[in-house]
């Protein structure tokens, strides 16, 4: 979808994002197509059946109301834990146990021993735990020295 002047997106009465489709507004979920490379662009909006209703190339070009509605929906669609500090990384039987501080609160999670943080295009690292939760680690300079020491083996 190429954004035009009309309002293309809105927040429905149930708080969910709705997109203007051929038959009017329908509730949609947002898929960030490039969550790390282009987090502010390329959103696929899909209905309950998973059918694409709209595709937003650049959110900045949306009308104000649509942008607001999209931003509200993106919170959940793009959710991950933002790690701000590391308290410990220990190995247990076949698991690595991470105790971290995140922007959302303190959290304990586990990764498999051969699962490593992936380097992200915009800097920092991404770790996926055994339950599928995502943890974004900032670049080393944004971590305190103790966290940096703990994370040393996982950084490049």
């Amino acid at each position, binding site marked *: 979808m190429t954004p035009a002047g009309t309002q293309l997106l809105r927040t429905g009465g*149930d708080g969910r994002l709705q997109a203007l489709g051929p038959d009017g507004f329908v509730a949609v979920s947002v898929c960030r197509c490039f969550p790390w490379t282009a987090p502010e662009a390329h959103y696929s909006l899909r209905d309950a059946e998973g059918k694409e209703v709209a595709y937003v190339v650049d959110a900045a070009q949306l009308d104000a109301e649509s942008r607001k509605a999209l931003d509200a929906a993106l919170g959940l669609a793009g959710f991950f*834990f933002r790690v701000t500090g590391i308290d410990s990384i220990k190995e247990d*039987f*076949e698991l690595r146990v991470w105790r971290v501080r995140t922007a959302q609160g303190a959290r304990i999670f*586990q990764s498999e021993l051969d699962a*490593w943080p992936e380097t992200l295009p915009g800097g920092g690292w991404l770790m996926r735990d055994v*339950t599928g939760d*995502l943890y974004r680690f900032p670049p080393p300079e944004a971590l305190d020295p103790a966290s940096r020491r703990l994370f040393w083996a*996982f950084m*490049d």
Partner: protein
Amino acid sequence: MVLLPMSARPATLQIHQALMERFTGQPAVLPAACRARCGRIELYAYCDLDEGLKLQAAWLVLDEARLRVLAADGAEQIALPRAEITAVKEQSGMGACWLGVYGHQGRLLAEVRASNRQKKALEHIRFVLQQQIEGHEVRLRDADAVYAEAVAGSIREAQATVARNQMSVVWRLLGYFRPYKRDVAIGSAAAVVMTLLNLAPPYATKYLLDDVIAPVADGKLGADDMLPTALAVIAALGLTYLVREACVWFRLRKMAYLGEFVAHDLRQEIYAHLHRLSLSFFSKKQTGSIITRVSSDTDRLWEFLAFGVVEASLSVLMLAGLGAVLIALDWQLGLIMTLPVPLFLAAYYFHGRSINRRFLKAWRKWSDVSAVLSDTIPGMRVVKAFSQEDRERKRFDRRNDTALAAFNEVHASWTTFWPVLMLLFHAITLAVWGLAAVRLLGVWGPPLTLGTFIAFSLYMGLFMYPLEVIGQITRMMNRAVSSAHRVFEVIDTEPQITVAEDPVPMERVEGRVRFDNVSFSYDGVRRTLRNLSFEIQPGEMIGLVGPSGAGKSTIINLLARFYDATGGAVEVDGVDLKRVDLPQYRRQLGIVPQEPFLFHGTVLDNIRYGMPEAPLEAVVEAARAANAHDFICKMPLGYETIVGERGHTLSGGERQRVSIARAILHNPRLLILDEATSNVDTETERKIQEALDRLVRGRTVVAIAHRLSTLQKASRLLVIKDGMLAEEGTHAELLARPDGVYRKLHDMQQELHAQFAV
């Protein structure tokens, strides 16, 4: 309404709860304050994200009357009568999910958010509410077990098992020595004697120098007088060495054999147990992980049992013996040697920690290198097609370089540590020599004999090895306990398919099958089959049709008793399958699966798999009937051709025909065809279909087929939809129903066929 059984047994529940307490930091059960608010609780989930997506502690609880959102202290935020709920929707993002509950006119009544960790528990609630909206009722008996499995299940899958006390695992492992008590006693005694004898030569040296040579050198005694004593000491020393080496031989031989025996017993036990386990175990665990448990883990345990346990115990004994002897010989020099021991152990400990971190990094870099290899080697065709060789080579070089740097860091660490440690040890040696020199010369302190000093020097040489071993005990034990856990997890897993205590013999199966109000659920929440009832007469060929996910394969799994029905009964010849003599029953059951599995071996071995004694004539006859004989004869080694691992040297159609020949030779009374002709070309399908037509004669057959046309010869078709029997009848009867499910499926396939046939 069907009462579903608990999704987890009490032992499993305890494990899941222990994992949650240990690893997640979230409550393992619904808090008492929340329970007090509710009626009979059916399901609950932890909602760990608030509206602003910050972490919080709230609960979504479904009881028999209401859906409630509760705070951790039990404060009720929302309480919705279940009857008011008209819709429930779920939405998932990258790392979080949302559940919305709606009432009349689409009004949002409640919404909760949670991280992915809680997704399964929330999904259970959504499913049950959805079922309620659709008019189905699902009642669960154990909300705690369902919640615990939903949250801790993925942790348990990633980990071998819940971590128990390390020592209890070691004791259990040592218990495997019990059948070999005598050998253990001999081996251990030999090891102790050997260790103690190590302490003898330096002491003999002291005696020889101080009590034999010195008096002669001082002229106090004549050389001739002392020669017999000297020779006696030398002879005693010789005897000591002889006994010591005999002990070394005993110890190495006994312990190496013992370790091997225990590993052999463990392998046998684990492999035998694997064959008793239900298919659900194999669907949950990766094949590689199971193989590792039988091979590498038992091998690692051999190493630990054969050498680790003994080496560690002997090192402690040796160190204690050395300390005692040194202090007894000369307390001043003895203290110089023994006081720094804790320092050495600490150095080993910290070095171990530091090098582990470096190893971790190197390991990570090495996995990057491996990733390039496992990407590009199988994909070489694509790499070449897109002319990306240079890019791939550079990618590999980059990663190889960083791995090199990481491994060099490891080497830098240990190559620095050891010389520094040895320098420290030499400093202690120098201190001993310094103090010894002033005392030998009589400058300071009590006099010291030359023999004592030389004995000391020899004892000092024995000091480093036990320190090193003790420094590695933790690492060695961690590795062994980790392996033991993985092995014991398999051994401790209880088969879900239990053998009846007094099984009903099934010497000859007639083939009368009855599904009586059967329900089944793989995860204890979602029902794959719902109250399914049908009968099959002996000799009938029944086709199972329906959309994918309808429950067709589950029917087959229950008929083969790979799983037990969770409600109702599956009967063969009037006997509940849970009561039959299972091996006897399965001997009369044949399965031709969608993906035929051939074992590494000859075509002959594979055809004869179910009847190893079958005569060659019967094998050829079966192969002919399966349309396999011709292609087998075209291979240079005919029936003696090795098919390779999983039969990879044969095409898919050839593998299928060998598998049909195997089934024909097995001559089953009850035959299951699980999409046997899918994924093959038309000509191959024709040949397989011919083979199947011969195979099905005179047997009761239950067949699933992707292509409905292949079921035209079936006596009856059962159309399964959403786990229920939607329609039943012959091909012609079902086609005559204009709005029937079968008619729709058939028309859809005809359309597709027409499109592709153009």
